[in-house]
């Protein structure tokens, strides 16, 4: 009967030291047990209430982890050692000015369409939620139309629109125009691409924004109204900040789709990141794989930056919604280091 009680006392003395668990039985066990009482350690026999519970072990989980790690290692090894990927050529292309120029175009188109699309989305969502049936119907129809038509079709129609509408005029609706634009001078490739993406983006963004606004409790609207807060203040300071908590994750999803969607602007002869890769690929056919990898890595970098930004934006808007905001990676690291230091201290004191 001494053996089980000894093994339990081991757990108490060095709770976080995995080493002691696997030590051969007799020698180290008697060591701490003997010196224990001398440095005010716990006596070998402790009441049950003072024992720390030994957590359940999960051997299946560990085996699955090993299998997955082996598979991942194999994949990475193949990635590095397979000559098919031509990492040397990848290195050659990765920071070439021609690729970076494409990257700038991608960033420009993305940023412009994201902003215009979001503003358009907010307007469409507000129209959809308004009391006017006309505004509601127009908003609904817009969303219905642009969600139905593939983005590539929208882009190609706009690209060819200069043939449909020769000039654009500002003036009285159906009446005389005051300012005339020649569309071929107005509709540069960048404008066409941005316009197409923004129109498409606004349709999706409006649903995201609308869902966010609907997620705000009716009591919040009532409280804001009962305090006599002005209309604009109610929306910008009370409803929108709470809606954004629901909007941000979906909108980032949307934004990542947009970043990758910009690769379609190649078809309206705008040379973005993908366009340049495609271009170079047809000039240097042997480099097509490393060029595609260059595009892949750049798109991964862009979406990663967005994902990191998402974490902090979400954290900002969770103030008040959660009792405690989630820790940043830096804070997690600090806690982990502190925890490790604490464990080391425990081991140090146990080992004298």
């Amino acid at each position, binding site marked *: 009967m001494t053996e089980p009680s000894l093994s339990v006392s081991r757990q108490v003395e060095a709770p976080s030291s995995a080493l002691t668990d696997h030590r051969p039985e007799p020698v180290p066990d008697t060591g701490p047990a003997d010196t224990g009482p001398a440095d005010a350690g716990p006596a070998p026999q402790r009441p049950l209430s003072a024992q720390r519970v030994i957590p359940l072990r999960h051997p299946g989980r560990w085996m699955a982890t090993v299998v997955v790690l082996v598979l991942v290692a194999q994949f990475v090894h193949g990635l590095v050692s397979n000559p098919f990927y031509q990492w040397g050529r990848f290195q050659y292309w990765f920071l070439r000015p021609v690729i970076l120029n494409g990257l700038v175009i991608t960033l420009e188109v993305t940023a412009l369409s994201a902003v215009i699309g979001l503003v358009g989305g907010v307007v469409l969502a507000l129209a959809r939620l308004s009391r006017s049936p006309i505004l509601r119907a127009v908003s609904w129809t817009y969303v219905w139309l642009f969600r139905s038509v593939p983005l590539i079709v929208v882009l190609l129609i706009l690209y060819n629109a200069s043939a449909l509408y020769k000039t654009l005029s500002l003036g009285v609706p159906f009446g005389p125009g005051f300012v005339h634009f020649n569309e071929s001078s107005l509709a540069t490739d960048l404008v066409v691409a941005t316009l197409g993406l923004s129109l498409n983006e606004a349709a999706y963004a409006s649903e995201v924004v609308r869902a966010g606004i609907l997620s705000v409790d009716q*009591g919040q609207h009532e409280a804001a*109204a009962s*305090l006599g807060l002005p209309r604009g203040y109610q929306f910008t300071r009370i409803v929108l900040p709470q809606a954004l908590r629901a909007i941000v994750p979906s909108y980032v999803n949307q934004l990542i789709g947009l970043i990758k969607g910009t690769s379609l602007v190649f078809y309206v002869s705008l040379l973005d990141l993908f366009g340049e890769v495609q271009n170079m690929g047809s000039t240097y056919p042997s480099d097509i794989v490393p060029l595609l990898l260059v595009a892949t890595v750049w798109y991964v970098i862009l979406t990663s930056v967005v994902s990191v930004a998402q974490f902090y934006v979400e954290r900002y808007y969770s103030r008040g*919604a959660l009792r405690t905001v989630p820790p940043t990676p830096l804070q997690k690291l600090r806690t982990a280091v502190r925890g490790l230091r604490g464990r080391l201290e425990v081991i140090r004191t146990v080992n004298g």
Partner: protein
Amino acid sequence: MSATATPAPTDAVPTGEPGQVRPAGVEIHGAYKSYGTNRVLNGIDLTVQPGQIAVILGPSGSGKSTLLRAVNHLERLDLGHVSVSGELIGVRRQGDRLKELSERAILAQRARIGFVFQGFNLFPHLSVVDNIAAAPVATGRRSKAEARELALSLLERVGLADKADAYPRQLSGGQQQRVAIARALALEPGLILFDEPTSALDPELVGEVLAVIKDLATSGTTLIVVTHEIGFAREVADLVVFMDGGRIVEQGPPSEVLDNPQHPRTREFLSKVL
């Protein structure tokens, strides 16, 4: 203030200094309201004198909350009208007709009437002090610094001076409701409406909220309280109103309505609640 055609001068416009607000009287005339075929208010006439504490009792669905919400135009009446301090709420008289006011004018009226909800409805993304300071700042009555000072003094009054920078979800229900009362007080209202302020609270927390309301009752502000707390009604009410089926069945001082009810429906209700 706005284009109200009421002849009586309004007195609820708050002056710069707190504590100078005059209590507001409330008059409700011929109030009818239906949701579809369900008639929730069936001809209500009620007068609450300035400075009175009125407690509205009645079973669920008797129209108490709807009546209270009509007082600051959160509900639009089908027929009848409400006036506070002699000023029509939500409508203006044009000849012999009533026209609904613009949203801006209605918001301005509401900014002089406090409203405390059953579910608190604090703004979860704002700290306690910002919840209270929001209305005085947004309506342009006070600078940010003044509003913060006002908020802190109101927090002291409801016994939560140490919670100024907490967020609502970090507080207990009773504390949240006391913040909500402080938020209503920040309007410096002549009238405060309470819609079952303790119904969402644990029995233990009811006392702390009622204590704050009792404290307000001594300050001279007109209060209308919808509640199920009969003891509270007996202790502080000047006027007890018993409603059932969208009508006022009986009203009078607590000594009459609570201790010597005339109507069988009132007696039946009180026998179940007490």
